[in-house]
């Protein structure tokens, strides 16, 4: 068992014959072309893809830990009268505005996106006629304007009663806005949250009914 019978390769022979003549080169090219012709593409993303579906669009102030951008197009912002009810923001239409003006805030609502790709509406209060100098509102407006071109983070400064603004250093990718556009986002954000008549449950509650 341990001796190698005659005729068996003893491992001492050399079979080095590195081919490099033109004939073998031609054969080699044919072989490479043949193999190339049976190659499967690996574009799995083109064959089956999933896309993140947007099912909620919060209406809120940005968290102080978020870096955000604001959509620079004025078509992606809107002036609204908003009423805060619980955790939700309701649109108050002119039909009922006068009745609830004291609990309603005129706001400029911006479309914003976080650095991790989450879209939200950022309502920034507009100054009232009787509220000539509100440092919270002014600093928030300044931040929103700045966020149209830069990644920023806003954090409340209670000493100065305004928002501090931090600009990201070294961020390199532009935001990717959802394809559905402003109207689509708006529908999701305010579905069922429009107060347009006196019989709306929120109106009834405010009247104590």
């Amino acid at each position, binding site marked *: *068992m*341990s001796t*190698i*019978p*005659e*005729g*068996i*390769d*003893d*491992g*001492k022979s*050399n*079979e*080095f*014959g*590195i*081919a*490099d003549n033109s004939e073998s080169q031609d054969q080699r090219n044919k072989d*490479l072309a043949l*193999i*190339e012709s*049976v*190659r*499967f*593409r*690996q*574009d*799995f*993303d*083109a*064959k*089956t*893809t*999933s896309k993140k579906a947007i099912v909620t669009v919060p209406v809120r102030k940005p968290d102080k830990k978020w870096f955000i951008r604001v959509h620079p197009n004025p078509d992606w912002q809107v002036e609204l009268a908003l009423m805060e009810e619980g955790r939700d923001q309701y649109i108050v239409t002119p039909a009922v505005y006068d009745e609830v003006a004291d609990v309603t805030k005129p706001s400029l609502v911006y479309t914003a996106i976080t*650095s*991790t790709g989450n879209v939200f509406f950022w309502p920034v209060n507009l100054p009232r006629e009787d509220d000539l100098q509100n440092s919270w509102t002014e600093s928030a407006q300044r931040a929103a304007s700045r966020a149209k071109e830069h990644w920023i983070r806003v954090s409340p400064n209670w000493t100065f009663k305004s928002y501090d603004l931090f600009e990201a250093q*070294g*961020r*390199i*990718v532009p935001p990717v806005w959802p394809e559905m556009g402003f109207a689509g986002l708006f529908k999701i954000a305010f579905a069922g949250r429009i107060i347009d008549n006196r019989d709306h449950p929120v109106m009834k509650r405010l009247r104590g009914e």
Partner: protein
Amino acid sequence: MNTLSRFREIWSVDFEFVSTPGERPLPVCMVAKEVRSGRIFKLWQDALLSRSEAPFSIDDDCLFICFYAPAEISCFLALGWKVPKNVLDLFTEYRNMTNGLYLFCGRGLLGALIYFGLQAMEAVEKDAMRDLVLKGGPWNEEERTAILDYCTSDVEALEKLLPKMLPDIDLPRALLRGRYMVAVARIEHYGVPIDTESLFILQENWERIQDPLIKTVEFPYQTFEGRTFKRKRWDHFLTRYGIPWPRLESGELDLSDEAFRQVSLLYPIIAPMREVRATLGRLRLSELTVGKDGRNRAMLSPFGATTGRNTPSSKRFIFGPARWIRMLIRPQPGFGLAYIDYCQQEFGIAAALSQDSSMIEAYKSGDPYIRFAIQARAAPEGATKQTHKAVRNLYKEVALAVNYGLTAYGLSKKVGKTEIEAAELLRHHKEVYERFWQWSDGVVDYGLLKGHLYSTFGWNRFYVGDVNPRSIRNFPMQANGAEMLHLACIFGTEAGIRVVAPVHDAVLIEFPIDATEDAVSAMQRAMSDASRLVLDGFELRTEATLFMHPDRYVDEAGERMWNTIWDIVRGLDS
């Protein structure tokens, strides 16, 4: 059988042979049957040895069918016969049809027969016949008949299996896999040249080496009690040196070799301890299978991993145990060795397959990891491996980790950063390589939705039951890395280059010293061709390290341990 109509003859072949660890096989008998005509050859050892070639045609218009081709082809090579042009290995194809599925009867021939609803020989009967062959003879007439009948039954089993499997066999790619199996047979046939004199000295003194070895490397760790590694003492050492360490879910230190490997990348002080642990823990020098011709041969187990990579024995294969053991590799007089590896193979594959222009730019820069750090603005333009070593190592870990879909938590453990810092690093990767992420997410979607992925040359991976998206994400890099090395080995061996070992993303080749340049450049060209084929024209760089007799193979990571051990050996009897 229409798929096979282009073949004039289809030969179903099986050898019985004696296999001694480290040696080439010794053929005992062969049965070959032509599937259409029923012509059959039954040759006993003496008849085989008297032939200079196979008794049937192995030309381009004939097909050779077998189950686990390296076994049959290694017999061809041992007999000095030319090898068949077209090999259809039903083992590989069965493996490819079921990769990722639970096989209740295993990957062998019996398992395949049962899987396809065919009658199979009893496993006990098969084992008994195998034992009879392996006893190595001499065999009496009755035993010879029994062995030949057994060999014939395997050939007939292949005949039955073929029509069952054929509808699902993707022939052009199956034949390519067959070519790789032939390459594997050649590689195993050559074997890796070993400095047997040194191996003998180490084997003889191994018991006496271990205690002094612990003493030598114990400072600064102070971790061993006798030959036992003490977890608590290791914890103290880490605390003393302020080294963060991965932990298990239980909170205990993760003492796996992988944990040592990862931390040693960032903290080189860990590396010697990793080698000592591997040396003391796993190493059985006697299990390294070295033939009488001084060459290490071990089954490479091609397509053993779900990714299609080889899974050679970690004990028997010279590239398996601790790194310093590799320094036993030494070219024979008049010969040289070259270790040729793909540079940053996984990164390059990810760049090319995803077509991420920033990633491609990073790969083409020559040092993708420092380029990634620069692209992420973690290092200034002009930074190099030398000027920003720590940052580069960190970004290298991130680049490799994302291929595995590592989470911020996982990455934080790996690189010794907080979870928030790790999340930031991952964010850098996502921002810099946005297209890669789009593609990679597509891979995961496809794998989850279809329950199936495949490589460029059709290596399948099925996903059933509880699927891990991370393994799906990583599959294209691993499976196509495997395809690349398969092609490189095919091209190399078929061009007459003596490839003696495939090593993950590298090959070790052997050549006469006066043919060094030809051999190395031919192998590098084979590897370039392979990368272009797998990556649709994108070429990966290769790097060659040469070792000429009388020098031995040097492994950077194992050299220190090698020297330490030989210092001990020299001091044993003084």
